[in-house]
């Protein structure tokens, strides 16, 4: 028994392989697109997982530090620590900003955290954790900083003492972890010009600069420059409690908004990246249609090119099933080559993308099944033409 499909491929192998390669690159793009979407979702999940929090306590009626601005006093954490079911609670401050990296601006999310508490990086790839309570930083490797580098944030210089990986904001910006007090200062302290202007304005106000009340002006000015706010309190719950059990009393008695992990995931994954996901979904659909069209077109042209041979086959009494099988096998083979090339290509170029591209094995399997189905469907057009051919055409 000889393989008709194999023989035919051997006959025009270069065309076949090149077609497979081209199709592969198209499938690679499709897989990458899916990877980009998965990467966005994974960025959001990474943010949640890296914070190692079970509950997010945020300003009342806000959606928390990731979706909108939330500001609470930094002593709220103490009252939260005293609530039933709270195992650990820590202040955290998030601030997206540009830092200088070798003369170029690098967008990072500065995270103010308390070492060893929720919100701090869980693992490192180099260096050490922060041991001083000021002017040290742990950076994500994607920031491009190396150990010992100096980062200038506002008026202070921070030394990078540790590197971590996959610590990103929901937008994919790499994180830079700094001690809590420094982050508070960075986020809420005004720049020097603003402080000087404010001082002058306060001094010009007779209510604060009253003759006969020495010290009043100084007191008012000291009050203006203090920063005692954080963005959220991260809570880890004690064993034996459900997140909702712990969240409800905080909501009721502390008058703060509390999100559980599910709630936060909903905000991050569903609300924040919904539009981007739809955009990518549109691309995926278009790419799938284009791929199917190309496969159908290629198989159809290949079949048209050997209509005479098919007529001969028919003439010598080959069954329709065998001819259909040949075309289907060729189409499926094309799909397999395309998939393999696409998968390899996507894996190779994936890390070069500026944002995280996550290629899941599940997506790959789904892609394979979709490709084969597409190829099978696309081959039906060619099969119809082949079966309709008149055996007489072979000698006509």
């Amino acid at each position, binding site marked *: 028994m000889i393989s008709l499909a194999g023989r035919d*491929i*051997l006959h025009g*192998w270069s065309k076949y*392989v090149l077609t497979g390669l081209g199709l592969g690159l198209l499938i690679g793009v499709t897989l990458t697109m899916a990877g980009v979407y998965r990467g966005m979702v994974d960025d959001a999940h990474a943010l949640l*997982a890296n914070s*190692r929090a079970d509950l997010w306590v945020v300003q009342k009626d806000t959606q928390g530090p990731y979706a909108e601005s939330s500001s609470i006093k930094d*002593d709220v954490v103490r009252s939260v620590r005293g609530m039933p079911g709270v*195992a*650990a609670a820590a202040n955290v401050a998030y601030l997206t900003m540009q830092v200088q990296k070798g003369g170029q601006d690098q967008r990072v999310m500065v995270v103010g955290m308390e070492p*060893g508490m929720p919100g701090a990086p*869980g*693992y*490192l*790839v*180099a*260096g*050490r*954790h922060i*041991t*001083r*309570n*000021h*002017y040290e930083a742990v950076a994500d*490797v994607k920031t*491009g*900083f*190396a150990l010992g580098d100096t980062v200038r944030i506002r008026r202070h210089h921070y030394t990078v*003492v*540790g*590197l971590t*990986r*996959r610590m990103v904001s929901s937008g994919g910006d790499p994180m830079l972890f700094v001690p809590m*007090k420094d982050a508070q200062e960075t986020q809420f302290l005004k720049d020097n010009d603003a402080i000087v202007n404010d001082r002058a304005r306060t001094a010009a106000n007779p209510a604060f600069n009253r*003759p*006969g009340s*020495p010290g009043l002006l100084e007191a008012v000015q000291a009050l203006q420059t203090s920063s*005692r706010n954080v963005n959220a309190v991260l809570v*880890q719950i*004690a*064993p034996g409690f459900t997140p909702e059990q712990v969240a409800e009393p905080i909501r009721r008695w502390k008058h703060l908004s509390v999100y559980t992990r599910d709630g936060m995931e909903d905000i991050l994954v569903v609300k924040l990246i919904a539009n981007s996901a739809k955009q990518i979904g549109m691309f995926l659909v278009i790419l799938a249609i284009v791929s199917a069209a190309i496969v159908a077109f290629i198989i159809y042209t290949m079949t048209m090119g050997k209509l005479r041979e098919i007529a001969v086959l028919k003439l010598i009494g080959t069954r329709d099933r065998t001819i259909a099988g040949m075309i289907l096998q060729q189409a499926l083979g094309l799909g397999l*080559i395309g998939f*393999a*090339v696409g*998968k*390899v290509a996507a*894996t190779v170029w994936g890390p070069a993308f500026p944002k995280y591209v*996550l*290629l*899941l*094995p599940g997506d*790959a399997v789904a892609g394979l099944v979709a490709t084969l189905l597409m190829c099978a469907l696309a081959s039906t057009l060619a099969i119809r033409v082949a079966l309709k051919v008149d055996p007489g055409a072979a000698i006509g």
Partner: protein
Amino acid sequence: MKMNPQTSRRLLLGGLALALVAALAFVALRTGPLAPIKVQVVEVKKGSVSPAIFGIGQVEAQRSWMVGPTVAGRVLGVKVDVGQAVLPGQALAEMDPVDLDQRLAALDASLARAQSAQQASGAQVADAQARRALAAANLKRNEDLARQNFISAGALEARSQEVASANAGVAAAQANLGGSAQDITRLRAERAALAQQRGNLKLVAPAAAVVTAREAEAGTTVVAGQAVLRLMDPASLWVKLRVDQGRSAGLAPGLMARITLRSRPGETLAGQVARVEPLADSVTEERLAMVAFDALPAGASLGASVGEMAEVTLQLPATAQSLLLPNAAVVQHEGQTGVWRLKDGTLEFAPVTLGVQGLDGTVQALGGLDEGDTVVLYSQTALKPGARIAVVEQLVPAGGAK
């Protein structure tokens, strides 16, 4: 033997297919979730750790003065400027005396008048005494006459009354004299008080110091207690250090300190903890300590300015020999603190009790590990028990991150 072109083509295609399958297999197993997690391991060793306390603070002057008037008034003149060194007792500024001089002159006149009054009183005493002497003589003569019954008893009684009156007159005159002396004392005291007030309007340096601020100029009206000039003793500069309460164990007076001033980031100055404040800051959760300089940096100016930021590292004595871990190896897993230990090639979580930590990130492992255990130092992602791992020499190439 020449190869059949059909066969060679088949071999070529087969090779291509094999290469593709191999690439696919490599890709599936080496990347993505099926790939092993790369980790870098370290062996637990014994050693001692030198814990240190790090904090930031501000340069402050231990001795500083606000020089100002004790009563409200207008500044007449300021004689010194900011940065100028002053000696104890040196006149720095003067307040406007307003009517004090006139009041002094008035008191002087009152004093002169009181002295005249005293003289008049003295003369009155002499006059009264003369009257008394005359009355006494008259009485004596009349007593003799009365004994011989030359005059009536009534006439003698009149003489006695004259003597008593003269005695009373002397007493009154002497009292007047005493009163005028007291008047003079009162006026002298009043004048002295006024002179004191007048002197108080001169603001003088309480000690050898440097002028740090000139807060009022001639013509400014200041209230009692408001500063016209601020002074400080430049030899008394120290750092008010703030240390995170959670990392302040061992903070005690006498600890050696390394001070880095904001103005001299590359320079380390020696110092010593002079005092640990009994009151901690409950809002910022920091403890306060005063760190004195061993020697102030020399320079054209003071060498350090008050209010300047300083970073201070306090070295604590090294601990006894114990197991040591890099703090990068310490992770939180299911609410426990510990490390990932490699045992027979598989990962297991070992809860560890941690001791003190050095500033270089070395931390004491008090329990839960044995010497020579291999633990995960760095990992590519968060680890789970039994996760597939591949041990590598270095996770991030030295000298730079990708």
